């Protein structure tokens, strides 16, 4: 009994030290002491983030073979390749917390881990590629800029690198949006239709309202996040409404209004039923996305086994030789 008390007290001491480090703005590194809950929350967040990059290859990848110019094809291919790269950094960063890539990928494939719900919407026209670059990457940047200051070193460093590339993607996306908005009437219709379909799902990317977001407070306390969902969402709206208007696109929200006093754009209520439905697995593409990933994984099983077996044989023959 005494022993237990001592242990508890030790842990609470550690926790205090840890919180002090966080409050001092120190960066936590893999070998540092950290509370289990901090580790678990980070593994959840970071692997979810990695999965999002990987699943996020699918909606845009859907248009690589149909891109309407060589230049745009190369830009798109390169962008999707970057996403795979981001997936890699993030899986590696997650491994520093002791969660192996194999393990977290299995959680995804078994439906236990989540990924960003935005990728459960289909890309139905070429304009969707433009709008994803502009809105979805735009939203991601706002979130990631914050995470680049997160208290966990490997995460924050991955975010710095990713953010740089995402900004480039957003720039390219917005350039395409502007070009189409300035194009033929068919291009204009196509791009407006894409904005109409993607606007609200993008707002949902920031998650539930602060009062419905149980993890937020803890994550802020631990210096993982520094802003709430609603704050981030507001920055996104302020920036993107402006950009939409610049190129003459409409935002599909009748309640949208500029508040001179606050300097913010006020916007309508999100359809939270749709949000929770997609989160629960009932979005328009949840099943197809998971099917595509599972098939890639299963079809690749023999390749991964071969690579392992070859490496084993090589190692063996090197050992023999020496």
């Amino acid at each position, binding site marked *: 009994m005494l022993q237990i008390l001592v242990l508890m007290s030790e842990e609470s001491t550690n926790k205090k030290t840890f919180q002090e480090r966080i409050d001092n703005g120190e960066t936590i590194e893999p070998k540092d002491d950290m509370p289990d809950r901090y580790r678990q929350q980070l593994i959840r967040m970071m692997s979810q983030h990695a999965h999002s990059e*990987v699943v996020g*290859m*699918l909606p845009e*990848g859907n248009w*690589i*073979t*149909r*891109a*309407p*110019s*060589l*230049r*745009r*094809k*190369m830009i798109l*291919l*390169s962008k*999707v*390749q970057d996403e*795979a*790269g981001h*997936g*890699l950094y993030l*899986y590696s960063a997650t491994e520093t917390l002791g969660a192996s890539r194999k393990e977290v990928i299995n959680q995804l494939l078994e439906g236990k881990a989540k990924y960003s719900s935005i990728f459960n919407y289909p890309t139905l026209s*070429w304009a969707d590629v433009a709008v994803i670059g502009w809105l979805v990457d735009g939203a991601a940047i706002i979130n990631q800029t914050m995470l680049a200051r997160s208290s966990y070193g490997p995460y924050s460093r991955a975010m710095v690198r990713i953010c740089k590339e995402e900004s480039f993607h957003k720039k390219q996306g917005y350039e395409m949006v502007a*070009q189409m908005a300035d*194009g*033929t009437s*068919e*291009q204009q219709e196509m791009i407006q239709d894409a904005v109409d379909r993607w606007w609200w799902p993008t707002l949902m990317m920031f998650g539930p309202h602060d009062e419905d977001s149980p993890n937020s407070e803890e994550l802020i306390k631990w210096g993982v996040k520094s802003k709430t969902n609603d704050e981030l969402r507001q920055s996104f709206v302020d920036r993107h409404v402006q950009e939409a208007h610049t190129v003459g696109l409409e935002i599909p929200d009748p309640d949208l209004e500029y508040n001179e006093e606050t300097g913010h754009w006020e916007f309508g209520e999100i359809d939270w039923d749709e949000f929770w439905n997609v989160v629960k697995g009932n979005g328009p593409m949840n099943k197809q996305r998971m099917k*595509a990933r599972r*098939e*890639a994984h299963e*079809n*690749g*099983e*023999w*390749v*991964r*086994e*071969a*690579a392992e*077996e*070859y490496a084993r*044989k090589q190692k063996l023959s090197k050992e023999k030789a020496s």
Partner: protein
Amino acid sequence: MTTQTKTLTKKEALFDYLVRLADDRLILGHRLSEWCGHGPILEEDIALANIALDYIGHAASLYEYAVEIEDEGRHRDDLVYFRNDPEYTNLKITELPKGDFGFTIARQFLFSAFSFYLYQILADADDEQFSGMAAKHLKEVKYHLRHSREWVLRLGDGTEESHQRIQDAFDEIWTYTGALFYQDEIDDLLQDEEIAADTKSFKTDWKNLVSDTLKEATLEVPDFDQYMAEGGRKGLHTEHLGHLLAEMQHLRRSYPDANWE
């Protein structure tokens, strides 16, 4: 059955030569890009997309130089989006469906090994713009060869299943390798001008590299003297190309007047 009597000019020959090289790379790049998001391991999603990107980039430069030489105001994209099946001059080996990862790797290895020898010569072509391009692309081709060669070893000398799959892939694709060395009056003319490479000059090197690699990978080397499928360069294709072009061109052809650049 009709005899060609008109004399080929150097300009025409160079245009055709560039387009042939470009078509191979565009079509093979397209097939590789189909892997994007569906690879066996994330590193390979990246590697295959990277090679696809290289190919499409090489094709873009080659088409661009071709329309520049042609000098009739066409854009490189016109060659991509507004030619049909019989106007495409890529080799059949490039248009076959991507198959499993073993098939993709077998094709990549055979094609990369060929490109490796080809580009070494083209990098010395007596046409500065072209040779400069080839020298630049050669660096990437070397990486492609290394990448695919390593995978041939891994799959050949990996598990029983992977050994069988990559062996099957080589057996199936072998008949399409003969056409890699196809040459006609276009090559003749440009070889006289010291622009085109004589593929005969490195056929033995290619065979040796291929044989040695397959043997190292514990694979059987199919017969180089077996029947070899023809077609490609003169616009005769398999039925796969038409479906690929339908997919690739549909959007662009639907809005011929729009700017997508």
